[in-house]
């Protein structure tokens, strides 16, 4: 949505509030309910989506504080968007210290109000001028990112084949970026160590790939970056993570369908075209990988996913794979492939796997 669109929306909502107040009535705001009970896995769109549940917040004595904070947050957002500035959630919290009595007492409080505003307008916080605290992930490979200089507005072409052993660090907000690429796929990698190995050996060259290092569970910016890149350039996304319940149900699942507690934003922050390359439970057997026993917390995570995760429940293949892993009682890391030689992953594992992406787990 354009800047002016955002500002118009905020003004329109505030106008309704003003009108109602002057009529001697109590204004009302309507929010989608942001809890797991109001979330389903939308298989067609490929991400978690909110059901239609809404809650109303009417301005009463009980809600007056939150109501005031919501309006002040809207005002801050308008200011940020109009002035093309940004604020982290933390900064927004500190800005409130100048709001007198309406100031936030702690950041969880301000985060909640910010999420309310996001939900209220059906926009993500980046569009409203707010940015997350965390950086996004690193990129190397066959990709040119097109950004612009804030001062001059001049286009900047960032060639991700030209970083040597370094990489392009994804900015916190990516909505304005454009892309050029001749890559055949995006490979999203869990660990920095594995990413560095593939970069060091220019794996992206031979494979015609874009490598993205997620560094654990991907940040919003990282997910949004991959999503926009994949959408615009029509690229498949393959995900290479540790073969454990965390890698599957946290890292991969969050990348692909978003997170349950931010379902109102998943539309933007998920990558439905992602497919799971490995490490699969079958890989552990096929490649005779060194393993570690599953910890209690792993087993619990796996069983939780089987029982409660709408995504896992949608795919028989995942139920089978996770059940198998629990039965095997072991997990294996990406780097376990080093048992067969440090570059076995480049020389054997990835090429073998990539011969049949249709066999990747969904």
């Amino acid at each position, binding site marked *: 949505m354009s800047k002016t669109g955002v500002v118009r929306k*905020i*003004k329109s909502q*505030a*106008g309704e*509030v*003003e009108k109602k*107040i*002057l009529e*001697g*009535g*109590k204004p009302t705001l309507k929010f989608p309910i942001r809890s797991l009970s109001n979330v389903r896995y939308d298989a067609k769109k490929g991400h978690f989506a909110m059901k239609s549940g809404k809650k109303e917040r009417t*301005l*009463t*004595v*009980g809600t*007056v*504080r939150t*109501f*005031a*904070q919501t*309006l*002040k947050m*809207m*005002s801050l957002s*308008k*200011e940020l968007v109009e002035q093309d500035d940004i604020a982290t959630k933390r900064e927004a919290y500190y800005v409130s210290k100048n*709001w*007198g*009595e*309406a100031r936030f007492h702690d950041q969880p409080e301000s985060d909640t109000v910010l999420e309310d505003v996001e939900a209220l307008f059906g926009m993500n916080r980046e569009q409203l001028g707010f940015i997350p605290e965390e950086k996004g992930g690193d990129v190397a490979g066959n990709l040119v990112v097109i950004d612009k200089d804030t001062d001059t507005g001049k286009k900047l072409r960032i060639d991700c084949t030209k970083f040597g052993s370094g990489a392009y660090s994804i900015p916190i907000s990516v909505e304005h970026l454009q892309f050029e690429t001749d890559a055949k796929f995006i490979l999203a990698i869990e660990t920095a160590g594995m990413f560095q190995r593939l970069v060091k050996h220019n794996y992206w060259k031979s494979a015609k790939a874009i490598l993205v290092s997620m560094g654990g569970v991907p940040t919003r910016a990282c997910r949004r970056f991959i999503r926009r890149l994949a959408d615009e350039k029509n690229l498949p996304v393959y995900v290479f993570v540790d073969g454990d319940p965390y890698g599957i149900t946290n890292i991969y699942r969050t990348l692909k369908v978003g997170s349950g507690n931010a379902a109102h934003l998943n539309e933007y922050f998920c990558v439905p075209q992602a497919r799971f390359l490995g490490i699969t439970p079958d890989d552990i057997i096929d490649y005779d990988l060194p393993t570690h026993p599953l910890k209690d917390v792993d087993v619990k995570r796996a069983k939780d996913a089987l029982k409660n995760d709408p995504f896992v429940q949608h795919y028989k293949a995942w139920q089978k794979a996770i059940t198998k892993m629990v039965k095997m009682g072991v997990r294996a890391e990406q780097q376990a492939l080093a048992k067969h030689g440090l570059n076995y992953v480049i020389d054997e594992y990835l090429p073998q796997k990539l011969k049949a992406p249709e066999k990747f787990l969904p």
Partner: protein
Amino acid sequence: MASKQREISTSEFFTKSRHLLVFDNPSKALLTTIKEAVDNSLDACEEGGILPDIYVEVTTLAEDRYRVLVRDNGPGIVRAQVPKIFGKLLYGSKFHALKQSRGQQGIGISAAGMYGQLTTGRPVMIHSRPGTKAQAQYYELKINTKKNEPDITKDQVVEWEFGHGTQVEIELEASYKRGRRSIDDYLELTAIANPHLELTYMNPAGDEIQYPRVSDELPVEPKAIRPHPYGVELGALLAMAHESKARNMQGFLTSEFSRVGAKVAEEILEKAMLPAKTKPKRLNRDEAELLVRAITQTKIMNPPTNCLSPIGEEELEAGLRKVVEAQFFATVSRRPSVYRGNPFLVEVALAWGVDGMNNDDLAVLHRFANRVPLQYQQGACAITKSVVGTSWKKYGVNQSRSALPGGPLVVLVHVASSWVPFTSESKEAVASYPEILKEIKLGIMECARQLGVHIRRGVRARDEEKKRDYIKSYIPAIGEALREILGLSEAKEKKVVATLTDTLERSRKY
């Protein structure tokens, strides 16, 4: 083997086993002595229909030696009884009667006297005066432990300034301590449980502490009752039948048990398939067994209340208010119930918002049995188990797992019975009979429900106050935000603020 056997006198037995009688450490010895004397005084006054005025004095004689003096305004003691009451173990009026009384197990002041004599060689000293017109008598008394016989070593008429009453003095090896489980604590608790008591305490430091009378009602004197059929056991039933003077079972049941009328007796006998004219003296084991079964299957009224003397809800609150300042009190006096044929009842009091306590504190629990405070063995006591086992959170009170509730809370539980079952002879913990646990819990829940209402009401009141603050604090921010977003004029902003303030202040909805 056989030749060496001989009968053991009880005093001799207890001389060797004094750890059973809570004389096994010096600070407990002092406390136990005072307890036994105060219990006796209270009983004597109440039996004499006199509102008790009791004076307790503890004097330091040497580092490890104290004199305890307890004086009451009761009816005094006639000479013939003096040696028996003060000199003989296992002697007392209370043991044989089935009714509520304090030192019910008949081991009492005489044991204290014996301990004193053992540790200091000093006799028990007694003043007694039956009435203003009678003369006061002074006795000194020693116990011959081998024979369980008291020797009166002094017996003389004396001048005594008090109108009527009894005064007992015992010197003993002991140590005095303050704080929880101390004598001070015990006397304070006794004052709570006996609102009709005027108590004066002179401590070893010479400070006089006064607990005034807050109720002029003497507790109703409990009546002795016949045993209730529930819980009577086979052997006991057989013995009762064989000793009964009744000519048939019908008569036996109605005359020997309480709450058994002709109809109930008939029902029992019918269920037991026993002819009503069976002679009690001829009752055999098999028949008795059928009878016991039949009793458990028959609905019988609870035993009469008059064998019990509850403190009463009003009096309990008054007693508690003597020593605790709090925002809220709740008291409940439950109706009597029965365990093993013994009637009992439970009383519960709560005080909330107690001065000097914080939200983070654990509740203070005061336990009483037949108006006597229980100070030791809290963990083993049915009262503690019931309090801990109650789900306090339901009532808005914090509670960690398996712990006492938290908050500025005092919980008081009183178990009264014609026979309180203790877990040991030191009489510090009530045994966990299911019927007793249940009654205590019900009593606590009843009080806690009232407390819950109070707490929620309090929350609401505080919220009301907040409401006004809220309006004042946050509406300006709404005006400001709308001005910023919509570019309102200052006048318009003011109007928004004023209108909204008005709307909300008129609002009753919350």
